[in-house]
């Protein structure tokens, strides 16, 4: 295999990993604050359609990315209003958010089906990446770099900053955090908003970078895989990065096998692999741990104040 092919495979891998890395990183912060938002898929779809609609209408991909982030935050705020404000069940409300995202994106996107845009290009000029191996470093679009920087930032924030400590305290023991004067609901709302922003951005990566055209249900369950990834990563940003790139490898294998025309595996079987791999990975995680979800924040999914 030539270097050029290897490099291009890795480029595809990074692109496939980026949207779920973003969405999972946002959900990780949300869950660290004790909020289980199962609406990731819905928030991603809101971001995907808002990003595409704005980029198509204005011709500007950066504006599209901004709109997608805002759309993700807006969707997350609906969730926060219901669960944190009105005390509704987090699982049910997350499902509602996903059903909403599917419906809303399909409705807004109906006018855009089949339209194309100029996709988000590499951040650095082409001559930086003239050599194939240099493409690995300089050949990505801005969002890939942003996602990597965010992993580092979130990791440092959670482990080293006082604000991160408070956020974790709210997720581990909301009552104590409240007793020593922290505003549990405000902190949870902020963490949920951050999760929405990254899910929206991750969704827009599908419609603005991966496939620069609109199709219904573009994210194809990647939001759910992002949720599984948080479990796989045991709520640690570094492991999230590994998990997302492993997932990217599975997705790239699927693409490569299709492109190579492997006739002994049906394309439908290849399309199943990401979902089957997720189940296998979740199972192996539990086999290795034996105590089911010991790493999860203690107050994950529990309402505050307790009902």
């Amino acid at each position, binding site marked *: 295999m030539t270097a050029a092919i290897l490099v291009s495979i890795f480029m595809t891998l990074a692109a496939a990993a980026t949207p779920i890395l973003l969405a999972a990183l946002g959900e990780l912060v949300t869950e660290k604050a004790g909020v289980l938002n199962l609406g990731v898929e819905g928030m991603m779809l809101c971001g995907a359609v808002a990003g595409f609609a704005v980029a198509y209408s204005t011709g500007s991909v950066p504006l599209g990315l901004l709109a997608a982030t805002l759309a993700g935050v807006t969707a997350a705020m609906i969730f926060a209003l219901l669960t944190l404000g009105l*005390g509704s069940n987090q699982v049910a409300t997350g499902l509602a958010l996903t*059903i909403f995202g599917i*419906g809303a994106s399909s409705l807004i996107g109906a006018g855009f089906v089949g339209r194309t845009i100029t996709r988000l290009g590499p951040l650095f000029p082409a001559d930086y990446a003239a050599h194939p191996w240099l493409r690995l470093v300089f050949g990505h679009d801005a969002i890939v770099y942003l996602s990597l920087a965010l992993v580092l930032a979130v990791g440092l924030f959670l482990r080293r900053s006082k604000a991160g400590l408070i956020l974790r305290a709210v997720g581990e023991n909301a009552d104590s955090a409240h007793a020593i004067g922290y505003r549990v609901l405000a902190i949870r709302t902020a963490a949920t908003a951050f999760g929405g922003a990254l899910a929206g951005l991750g969704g827009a990566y599908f419609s603005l970078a991966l496939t620069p055209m609109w199709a219904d249900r573009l994210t194809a369950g990647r939001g759910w895989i992002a949720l599984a990834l948080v*479990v796989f990563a045991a709520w640690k940003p570094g492991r999230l990065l590994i998990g997302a790139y492993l997932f990217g490898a599975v997705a790239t294998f699927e693409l490569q096998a299709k492109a190579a025309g492997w006739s002994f595996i049906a394309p*439908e079987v290849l*399309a199943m692999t990401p979902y089957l791999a997720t*189940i296998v990975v979740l*199972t192996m995680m539990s086999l290795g741990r034996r105590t089911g979800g010991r790493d999860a924040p203690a107050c994950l999914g529990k309402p505050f104040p307790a009902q």
Partner: protein
Amino acid sequence: MLEWRRRREPSKAMLYLSPLIAIGLTMLTGMLVFGAIGYDGLRAVTAIFITPLIEPQRWADLGVKAAPLIMIALGLAIGFRANIWNIGAEGQYVMGAIAGTGVALLTHDMTGWWILPAMALAGVVGGAAWAALPALLKVRLQVSEILTSLMLTYVAVQFLYYLVRGPWKDPDGFNFPQTKMFSASQTLPAVAEGSLVHFGVPIAILLALVAWFVMSKTVAGYAVRVVGRAPAAARHGGFDANRVTWAALLAGGGLAGLAGLLEAAGPFGQLTPQFPVGYGFTAIIVAFLGRLSPVGIVFGALVLAVTYVGGEIAQSTVRLPSAATGMFQALLLFFLLATDVLVRWRLAWKARPARSAP
């Protein structure tokens, strides 16, 4: 000024009123939203929520759409009561249809009264088997059934695509990806001569009655409720949470599988790539709208059936895109979850600070 006051007891009245309030708010919001984006909002809402109810020729359609929703939601509600979140009913619905269709393809050249019951049995087993995987992983390894059941939905849909494009493709089907049409002994009969209503509709109602009996009159139903409401007390009382997990997932999967087979042998008459129509997800809304009670679910399914049938009417009358139905359904669930606050809290006038006597 108004303020929220916590109720001492959850309000029974609000438990039943809040779904109605949610429906009202959905209609109002829908009218405003669709008006704002350039449709005739009032006509759209009328077409979706009112027309299907006042035109008798649509009633058969309502029953046919409500039947699978009732069946799937009954199973899901049992789980939701016990805090088992099976959200992969769509996959179990597809696997039930696949298993039943397998029997249909094997018996295609035969006739007999036993063929449809055999298909139905295969449907139940197929759906339950697909739900057994999340159940096993949950009970043995504490893997979240939310994620596994949903992942398996994507797998089931791809499996369906594989079958109808590959081994099960009808050789006389002009290269369309679909199975053979089912024979007369494999198709659900109509309830009455010339009616569009098939036998799945009375079966759904019957199942709702059975579920009502099991949930409110038997120890098994009681165990489900206790495990969901007070897991610690359930352990003390000797109720086995694992058994409840198994029961909830197998019942949910079996009912979804039966619904899938009845759709395949009823409205579809074959398997095609269009078969996964989202009933498994809509049934989640039905279960909540019906307050997780079997009788409520029958009404909840009718409301959602109205939005489906009405959505089609609005498509032809006010050119509302079909995706609007999904939006209305999601709005309904949001408002339902939001108005639930009224069950536990009430709005009251803020008491004025007492004035000192002159």
